[in-house]
């Protein structure tokens, strides 16, 4: 946005103020959309969060009481805790596995296998999340493929309905998320790797570095920005998760997979507590921003 063709600047010299106005005119349509479809809903949500309202009838002023409820009602607070646990599965697993997968694919870049691997890993990103949720709930059912495989290798003792068990439901849902997001991370990291100067690797190899040393000392530091993007996208996906969980467990069993996105939906449309739902939505938004900004800052800081 800062780059301007030199010719334009010399031939159309106008007063700075006028030029800035024209600039704003160009941005106006986009800004209008942004104001109506992003800022207005946020402002309305904030307004609703200060009221006690069932969505239809008259509302009463509640002040910050709804926010108090978000942090004191164990059901609401636990959903926030669950969302942070999901970060492990939605972020840590895809980024770590994505790095490994990208490095491996890069090593075999020339072969046809690399193309196949890339396609297979990226496929989940193309499939609608609802379809992924349904497919995985079949795989993870008590008679599903996962349990059949476990029985085949003699692990029949640990088979269970993975999505219906209190101790395994959240990790199981997390694994679905990891599966979906792995492809995105792999592709982003692979793109990042292709722009690393090959001479760096050559130099390292001359100095006697092995594959691991190369990975740690060259690949990972060079991918700092790509990793930051991956982490940002996946952390937001974890905190704002809804589709996969709505399809596979609906927050059950016993609220063990309840996340803020689902909780907001239930509060607003089933319990008809629009005020509390809006308060939780505002808290979630602030949390997402609070998590995303430091990651962005960290990536930028490294650039300088």
């Amino acid at each position, binding site marked *: 946005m800062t780059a301007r063709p030199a010719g334009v600047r010399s031939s159309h010299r106008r007063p700075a103020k006028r030029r800035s106005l024209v600039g704003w005119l160009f941005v106006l349509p986009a800004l209008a959309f942004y104001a109506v479809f992003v800022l207005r809903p946020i402002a309305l949500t904030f307004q*609703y969060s200060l009221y006690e*309202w*069932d969505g239809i009838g008259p*509302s009463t002023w509640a002040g910050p009481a709804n926010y108090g409820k978000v942090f004191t009602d164990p059901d609401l607070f636990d959903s926030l805790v669950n969302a942070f646990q999901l970060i492990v599965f939605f972020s840590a697993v895809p980024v770590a596995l994505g790095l490994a997968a990208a490095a491996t694919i890069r090593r075999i870049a020339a072969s046809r296998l690399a193309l196949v691997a890339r396609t297979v890993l990226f496929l989940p990103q193309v499939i609608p999340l609802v379809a992924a949720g349904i497919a995985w709930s079949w795989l993870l059912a008590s008679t599903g493929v996962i349990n059949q495989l476990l029985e085949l290798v003699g692990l029949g003792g640990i088979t269970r309905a993975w999505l219906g068990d209190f101790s395994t439901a959240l990790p199981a849902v997390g694994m679905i998320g990891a599966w979906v997001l792995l492809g995105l991370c792999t592709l982003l990291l692979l793109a990042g790797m292709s722009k690393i100067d090959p001479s760096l690797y050559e130099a390292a190899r001359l100095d006697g570095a092995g594959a691991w040393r190369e990975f740690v000392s060259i690949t990972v530091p060079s991918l700092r920005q790509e990793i930051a993007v991956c982490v940002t996208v996946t952390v937001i996906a974890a905190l704002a998760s809804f589709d996969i969980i709505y399809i596979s*467990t609906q927050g059950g*069993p016993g609220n063990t997979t309840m996340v803020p996105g689902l909780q907001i939906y239930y509060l607003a449309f089933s319990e008809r507590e629009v005020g509390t739902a809006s308060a939780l939505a505002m808290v979630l938004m602030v949390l997402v921003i609070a998590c995303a900004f430091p990651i962005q800052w960290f990536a930028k800081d490294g650039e300088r």
Partner: protein
Amino acid sequence: MAGRGRPGRAGAALVIAMGTLAAACAAPGSNSPQPAATSASPQAAAPTCGTAPITMTGYFETGFPLPKALTTEFSKQHPNVTWNIREDQFAVITQNAPRVLADNPPDLMRLPQVSELVKDDLLKNLDGYAQSFGWDRWPASQLEQLRLGPGGRPRGEGSLYALGLNVSMTGVFYNKKLATQIGMSAPPATLAEFDAVLAKAKSAGITPIVQFNGGATGGLAFPLQNLMASYGPPGPINDWIFQKPGATIDTPPNLQAVQHLERWIKAGYFEKDVNAVDYATMMSRFIDGQGLFTFNGDWESGNLDKQMAGNVGFMLMPSAQEGGKPATMSAPLTFGIAASAKNADCAAFFLNWVATDQRAREIGVEVGGSRPMGPADAYMPEVASDTVTASTLAAGADLAEADGAMDFIANATGAIYAKSWTPNLQKLVAGQQTPQELLKAVQADYASQIEGS
């Protein structure tokens, strides 16, 4: 936007100002459009659909063919009436109901729990129609659940706000082949006998009960409420569902019921993965012969007669005491008219037709599988005696005689099922909740939901 501090900041301020301006600053909901005037207007002659062409708007539930079968037959008899029908899953209807009734009022709509809709003046008061069509002369128990006090509380008395297409009822279906296999020649007559049959099935390697309890729909509420009815009278449970002042679910008989359910769980009478089983999975397992009993409603009678012809039986849950009166969940298939519906008269005429027309009553039984509503002496269609539909209809008559009908504990408030019964029953299955704490937790949620609404 780098490099230009001032205009950028001013622009951002402008954008935010636009956003805030666009957001109405008045309190939300205060400008709601509903006029409160939905009170009854006494009418001389009963309204009809007239003779001029008329298009009725309907909002029905996906997967249940009865309403459409009835509207099709109605158009055959009244060719000036055509139907414009939208269908959604029941969960979606539940969530959309207030908005749809307010913004896009249908003439006829499948209704979820009605208390909150009445509170917001979204449903037409049907007292005037009841008078002119003579609904007030039907057995009072049919309409009890559809009557609400002013402001939607309590339910069970007051003005009529909805009508049923029929009255569905719940109980215990059993697989006849498996029953013979373990020597069950007749349905158990007491709870103790029922327990003995369950134990026998378990030791014969047959899953005693297939039930659903996964996701947000805790199907163990079916056996639980049946157990509640075995141990105590249905009245206090109904009072609780109807939100009568001072009603509580945390009573000694109900505690015995939850403890009994816990014993069933611990004895392994339900499938091991019951917390991951949804309704459709339960149905396919039962039809596939993977279990002896299932707790369900007569809306499945027609389906089961088709899928397991001759191999399925039905019984009402036996009482804990010998000779005790039967009681179970039984509720009208609720339909109502939006407060601001365009063709309310025709919709009311249709509802009356469903209950009184001979062909409509036949469709109600054949397609719906449940007892039609209407006058006590109204025409009852014949059903082949070896079908489960015949058993459920007969059980319905027994139930009416014993005055044992009660609404479903999941209908006490709009959110009590998904947000309280379900997670607590799932915890009970996992051994993470005690019976006493379960009732306490549900009662606490109930109190806060009523207070909040």
